[in-house]
């Protein structure tokens, strides 16, 4: 016991409550990510979804059903991440600024979950919507992946295991669903819906990057043996989730013959999720060859530069890019 309390021993030591001071950072990444998160803020109302009504009517009934199911699946994951995931990370924070970033992440996940309902109310009948939500409650694969993640979020689990689960949700589990609007967009269908999904994809990329970064900072404080254990845990969890994702993908996409195309996209995103944690790829390049139309739908107007191979138009430079940064001296 400290001296002050020895004298007045009836005084109960109080925790000092600290106001967050953004002018004194322990980790510069917190401010960088906070700025990115807040500048990227958006609401579904800003996307003119009603322009997709005509396009929606050109989809066959089974394509419409698939699309609504995929979106309810995504809604479930966003719900988990908003109401449990991001909040479960808060007791583990190292800085107060990290906690503030997590409040933004939790809120944006609610915006994402809410967005799917905007899409539904614009495009679908009440009966179609109710049927799809029932489907999401009854689909064993969807329920299984959400449940595995929720288990890892429980209090008492290792804080770094929570971060692994969180990164896998943000950077891997969404992608069996994100594939479909990118596919429709590549065929000039539901293009406004795709614009909205791209905003969600952009947010998830920041979330996965940031939580993965905090995971790596956490690892630095551990022994080699503990680091190995966590790496084994991460790869084992990825295998378990991948098993479920395969079955989920087959069930959804076999009907329109896209399963293999979706699986390549899953492998590619699994590798990126592992990179967010600082790990090497799990799937070899041969099974990660994503359909170029899907890649182009993900990042339109940004061709993959490969000057070396002589392909593409990499030497065409200087078209409207934001070079207006006051720090440039020339």
């Amino acid at each position: 016991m400290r001296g002050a309390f020895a004298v007045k021993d009836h005084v109960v030591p109080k925790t000092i409550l600290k106001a967050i001071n953004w002018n004194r950072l322990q980790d510069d990444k917190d401010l960088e990510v906070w700025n990115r998160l807040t500048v990227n803020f958006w609401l579904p109302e800003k996307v003119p979804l009603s322009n997709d009504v005509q396009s929606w009517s050109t989809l066959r009934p089974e394509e419409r059903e698939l699309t609504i199911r995929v979106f309810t699946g995504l809604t479930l994951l966003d719900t988990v991440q908003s109401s449990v995931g991001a909040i479960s990370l808060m007791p583990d924070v190292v800085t107060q600024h990290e906690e503030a970033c997590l409040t933004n992440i939790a809120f944006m996940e609610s915006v994402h979950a809410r967005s799917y309902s905007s899409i539904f109310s614009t495009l679908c009948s009440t009966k179609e919507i109710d049927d799809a939500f029932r489907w999401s409650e009854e689909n064993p694969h969807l329920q299984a992946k959400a449940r595995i993640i929720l288990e890892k979020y429980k209090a008492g689990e290792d804080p770094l295991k929570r971060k692994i689960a969180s990164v896998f949700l943000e950077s891997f589990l969404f992608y069996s669903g994100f594939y479909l609007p990118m596919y429709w967009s590549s065929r000039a269908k539901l293009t406004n819906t795709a614009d909205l999904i791209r905003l969600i994809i952009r947010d998830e990329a920041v979330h996965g990057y940031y939580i993965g970064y905090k995971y790596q900072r956490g690892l630095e404080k551990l022994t080699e043996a503990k680091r190995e254990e966590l790496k084994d845990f991460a790869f084992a969890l990825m295998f378990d989730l991948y098993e479920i994702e395969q079955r989920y993908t087959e069930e959804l996409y076999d009907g329109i013959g896209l399963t293999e195309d979706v699986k390549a996209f899953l492998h590619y995103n699994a590798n990126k999720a592992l990179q967010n944690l600082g790990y090497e790829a799990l799937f070899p390049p041969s099974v990660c060859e994503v359909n170029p139309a899907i890649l182009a739908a993900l990042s339109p107007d940004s061709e993959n530069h490969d000057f070396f191979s002589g392909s593409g138009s990499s030497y065409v430079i200087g078209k409207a890019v934001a070079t207006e940064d006051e720090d440039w001296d020339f």
Partner: protein
Amino acid sequence: MPGLVFFSSASGNTLRFVTRLEEVSAGRYGTALRIPISPQDPMPDPGGDFVLICPTFADGEGRGAVPKQVIRFLNDPDRRAGLRGVIAGGNRNFGQTYALAGRVIASKCNVPVLYSFELAGTETDIARVRRGLDLFWGMECSTMA
């Protein structure tokens, strides 16, 4: 021999890319020089021609794509004079701003974007960049001669 200069933030993606590139290049480009994260630390001096490897940090509008420290590095005319090309890191999930830092630097400095890769790059990216750099330096040397 021409060299490599790179920036990597505390997340370390670009550092991991450069480390693997050095492993497969058997020191052909010397030791890659790192632009420091902290503005207090001294800038490296490439002392000749180099290729810059730089990640992208753009917001939704494309602002802030090039890290401030990279801008400071390039603001020096002597250092900038050695820049021959840029390789950009990024993430396709950021849509139109994917690997934007490469395009911004290319247009500011009038050099080609040689390649772009996601996060810490794949095996395929590393192999392509290694082969490409060998060819590129060959090409540059023959046009200089």
